[in-house]
């Protein structure tokens, strides 16, 4: 399906004096100029320039060709590690016929008209959508620019454009042997009338797409030169750190800042409704000042909230709440056979991006300038408008590279807070959250409570399937208009309502049970699919066991006409050596199969579980069919990293509440996987001519069930609650006791030790 690049309206007026003033005063690295006059086709609404006064050919929102030979590509999706900049640049460069070594990439400014993601209805990066929505759009944009440049050359030579070829930004007229560089054509190309649609290359002619090209963003990531948001320094800037009320929905009553103000380097203490910030000459002064505050909170309605209460409420809602149907096929009631039922429980999760939350803000009487790494840059403008009262055109947001996103930076709460802090002082402020604040004030992946059952016929084949999930909706606050007419949040039943398997009778439903007011929920890598595929694929394993069948053969028997799912299942299990020889005792091999985000994946994991209940991952084999591949190196990296992200959560991660506050503080008690725990991983990519599917979140989706199914194979213990409770896996209490007494306290993380002590 080819999407035509549609003309974009000119939403901004001419560069007015006040804006020009703003640009000058901001000393912006990237200045935006707003072109006046009648609109050009191909989205000639706006251009971005590195240096003032440097003429550029800017045929659309994504391509800039300078008459100095520079080629700048503007990236509609942000870069948080997932490889979006390389993928997007590849799509543009392919059709523009330039090399990735000839271009530079630019962060897109906030501009919903130019840079909205049509799959999300917002200028947002998430949901593994980038390549899917850019596949046609950016190739069209590159092709359009190439068409104009070639036309300019042809007009100059007075030849037919079809006689011209392009390679690496040089147009050649083969019959006469003449050549012109894009740099020489930029000015003339700007005068050429754009076509309705420029022709696209046939995939067989691709020079860049499909090749493992080097990433465009990594050279500056190995020598410390690439700035993240937290690295931004502007003249006169001070540094702040902040503490919000530890209970959700609580308020600040009063603060005694006498000791904080005595800390050398502390400049100001700023009060917000629900938080206190200390501003210092540097982070260390601010941090010491914050620690020296004596804060009195009104802990609010959630002041006694506990995790136990949350899950009790979820179970209650699952039993007595009103379900919204996500899928209803055939008749699940009255099907006779062997009924298998199970209940699964998933915890709240934090994101813990390596780069802690931060924002640089300068609020002036007539303008507000923000430097931040955000997955939703336009929403940062919205909150700054709200807090400052300034019109949107007086807000400038410079987006930045992100030290991880995973959905955390789809929320602009921290930007709103930073603007509120900066509004109270007359200098630029960089607000940095401590890791403790990052863990305690996240927008958490909600907890879920799932009841699932299936009826097996006489041959052990599932003939009925019911799945009721209960939990909060993220979409209801993130994009209320995207909710279904019947109140369904499609995210809650993603990969649950649309199984890869044949199921004659099936009902999938959701009971909406929002978290207590004030406890904000958020997207987390893999979103609904991560939750549902864990439940579904664990349960499919349970069914295979109940039917006395091999888990792979059992899945195969249900695939019916699903060749892409079958292909990845066969490829992964064959590469992993499934069924070839018995594994040693306490070793197990687990499989998971699913089709998240328009891609098909099968993951096979080998584990060993010690008599003391410790899990060691030994190997992981993935087969993936994500349609046409833009960069196989990125696909492999996202599978490797996505698995680690999901396994981390399954093995260790869970946010718990006590007296209304998050109990976890830092990486010591919100643990994540380390290098020594990471197994070798193989990634096998299926050659495909299908439309591109998503990739960034897919492996996280697969990680949890494949691991838990392997643990079951190793131990016979089916774990239905995450994170994994190692005490359920202990086969030898004496061995655990001996190991504990032999170890020094430093060898054992405190949370593990406390669990272990209870056991022995």
């Amino acid at each position, binding site marked *: 399906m080819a999407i035509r690049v549609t003309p974009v309206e000119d939403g901004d007026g001419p560069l007015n004096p006040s804006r020009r003033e703003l640009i000058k005063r901001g000393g912006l690295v990237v200045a935006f100029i707003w072109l006046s006059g009648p609109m050009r086709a191909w989205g000639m609404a706006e251009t971005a320039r590195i240096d003032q006064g440097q003429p550029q050919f800017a045929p659309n929102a994504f391509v800039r060709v300078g008459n100095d030979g520079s080629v700048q590509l503007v990236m509609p999706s942000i870069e948080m*590690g*997932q*490889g979006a900049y390389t993928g997007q640049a590849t799509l543009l460069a392919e059709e523009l016929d330039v*090399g*990735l*070594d000839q271009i530079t990439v630019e962060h897109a400014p906030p501009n919903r008209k130019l840079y909205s993601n049509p799959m999300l209805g917002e200028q947002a990066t998430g949901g593994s959508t980038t390549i899917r929505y850019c596949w046609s759009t950016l190739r069209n944009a590159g092709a359009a620019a190439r068409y104009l440049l070639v036309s300019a050359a042809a007009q100059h030579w007075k030849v037919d454009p079809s006689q011209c070829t392009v390679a*690496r930004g040089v147009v050649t007229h083969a019959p006469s042997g003449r050549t012109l560089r894009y740099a020489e054509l930029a000015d003339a190309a700007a005068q050429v009338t754009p076509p309705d649609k420029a022709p696209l290359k046939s995939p067989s002619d691709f*020079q*860049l797409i499909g*090749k*493992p*090209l*080097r*990433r465009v*963003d*990594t*050279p500056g*990531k*190995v*020598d*410390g030169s*690439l*700035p*993240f948001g*937290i*690295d931004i*320094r502007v003249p006169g800037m001070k*540094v702040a750190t902040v503490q919000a009320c530890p209970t959700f929905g609580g308020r600040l009553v009063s603060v005694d800042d006498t000791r904080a103000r005595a800390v050398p380097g502390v400049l100001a203490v700023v009060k917000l409704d629900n938080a206190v910030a200390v501003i210092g000459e*540097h*982070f*260390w002064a601010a*941090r010491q000042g914050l620690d020296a505050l004596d804060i009195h909170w009104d802990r609010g309605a959630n002041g006694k909230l506990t995790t136990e209460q949350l899950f009790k409420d979820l179970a209650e809602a699952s039993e007595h709440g009103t379900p919204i149907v996500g899928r209803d096929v055939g008749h699940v009631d009255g099907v006779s056979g062997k009924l298998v039922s199970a209940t699964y429980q998933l915890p709240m999760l934090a994101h*813990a*991006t*390596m*780069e802690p939350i931060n924002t640089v803000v300068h609020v002036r009487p007539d303008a507000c300038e923000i430097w931040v790494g955000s997955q939703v840059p336009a929403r940062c403008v919205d909150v700054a408008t709200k807090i400052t009262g300034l019109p949107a055109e007086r807000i400038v947001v410079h987006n930045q*590279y*992100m*030290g*991880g*996103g*995973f959905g955390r930076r789809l929320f602009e709460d921290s930007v709103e807070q930073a603007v509120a802090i900066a509004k109270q002082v007359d200098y630029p402020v960089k607000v940095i959250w*401590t*890791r403790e604040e990052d863990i305690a004030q996240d927008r958490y992946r909600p907890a879920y409570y799932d009841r699932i059952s299936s009826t097996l016929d006489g041959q052990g084949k599932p003939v009925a399937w019911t799945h009721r999930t209960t939990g909060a909706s993220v979409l209801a606050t993130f994009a209320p208009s995207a909710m279904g007419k019947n109140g369904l949040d499609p995210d809650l039943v993603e990969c649950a309502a649309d199984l890869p398997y044949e199921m004659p009778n099936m009902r999938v439903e959701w009971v909406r049970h929002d978290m207590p007011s004030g406890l904000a929920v958020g997207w987390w890598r893999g979103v609904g699919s991560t939750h549902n595929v864990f439940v579904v694929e664990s349960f499919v394993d349970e069914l295979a066991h109940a039917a006395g069948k091999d888990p792979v053969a059992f899945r195969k028997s249900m695939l019916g006409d699903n060749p892409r799912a079958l292909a990845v299942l066969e490829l992964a299990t064959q590469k992993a050596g499934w069924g070839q020889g018995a594994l040693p005792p306490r070793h197990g091999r687990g499989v998971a199969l699913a089709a998240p985000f328009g891609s098909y994946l099968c993951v096979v994991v080998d584990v060993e579980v010690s008599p003391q209940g410790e899990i060691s991952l030994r190997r992981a084999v993935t087969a993936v069919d994500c349609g046409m591949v833009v960069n196989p*190196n990125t696909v492999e*990296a996202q599978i*490797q*990293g996505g698995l*680690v*992200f999901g396994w*981390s959560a399954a093995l260790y991660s869970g946010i718990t509440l006590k007296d209304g506050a998050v109990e976890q503080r830092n*990486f*010591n008690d919100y643990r*994540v*996987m*380390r*290098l*020594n*725990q990471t197994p*070798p991983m193989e990634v096998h990519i299926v050659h495909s001519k299908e439309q591109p599917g998503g990739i960034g979140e897919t492996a996280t989706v697969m990680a949890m069930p494949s691991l838990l199914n392997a643990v079951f194979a190793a131990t016979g213990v089916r774990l239905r609650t995450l994170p994994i409770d190692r005490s359920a896996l202990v086969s030898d209490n004496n061995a655990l006791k001996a190991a504990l007494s032999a170890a020094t306290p430093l060898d054992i993380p405190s949370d593990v030790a406390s669990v272990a002590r209870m056991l022995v």
Partner: protein
Amino acid sequence: MIVLSINGQDSQVEVPEDMPLLWVLRDVIGLTGTKFGCGIAQCGACTVHLDGQPVRSCVLPVSGAINKKITTIEGIGATDIGKRMQQAWLGIEVAQCGYCQSGQIMSATALLAQTPQPTDTDIDRAMSGNLCRCGTYVRIRAAIKQAATGQITLPQTIA
């Protein structure tokens, strides 16, 4: 006044003696390649070298760095091992978001300086203090081995 030797250059700073080196580097001197991740020596993002030894600068008082040679990610490429490590990192395309990679490269470089041909166990020991949320661990291991053997193989790219 404290004098620090950073990447072969002396810098004079007026800071409290108990201020962690990390914040002196980042907020006072302006060397922002060294990253803040946890503040309690749990993640390794702030790793720098002190006389060639890897240290977590988020918990190291600046007074502990006086009269020592401090090397940061901005200066590590000037050493042979550091340069090889950076090349291997790019060759294998280790980095995703890249935020932890300064610390990873500093830990890996210190390992190779001490143990030119590290085993998997050596790599586990030296690198398990550096967290990566993007999960680049398999490539980190591969890049260290590539830097150790000196065989640089870059992924295919256009001329």
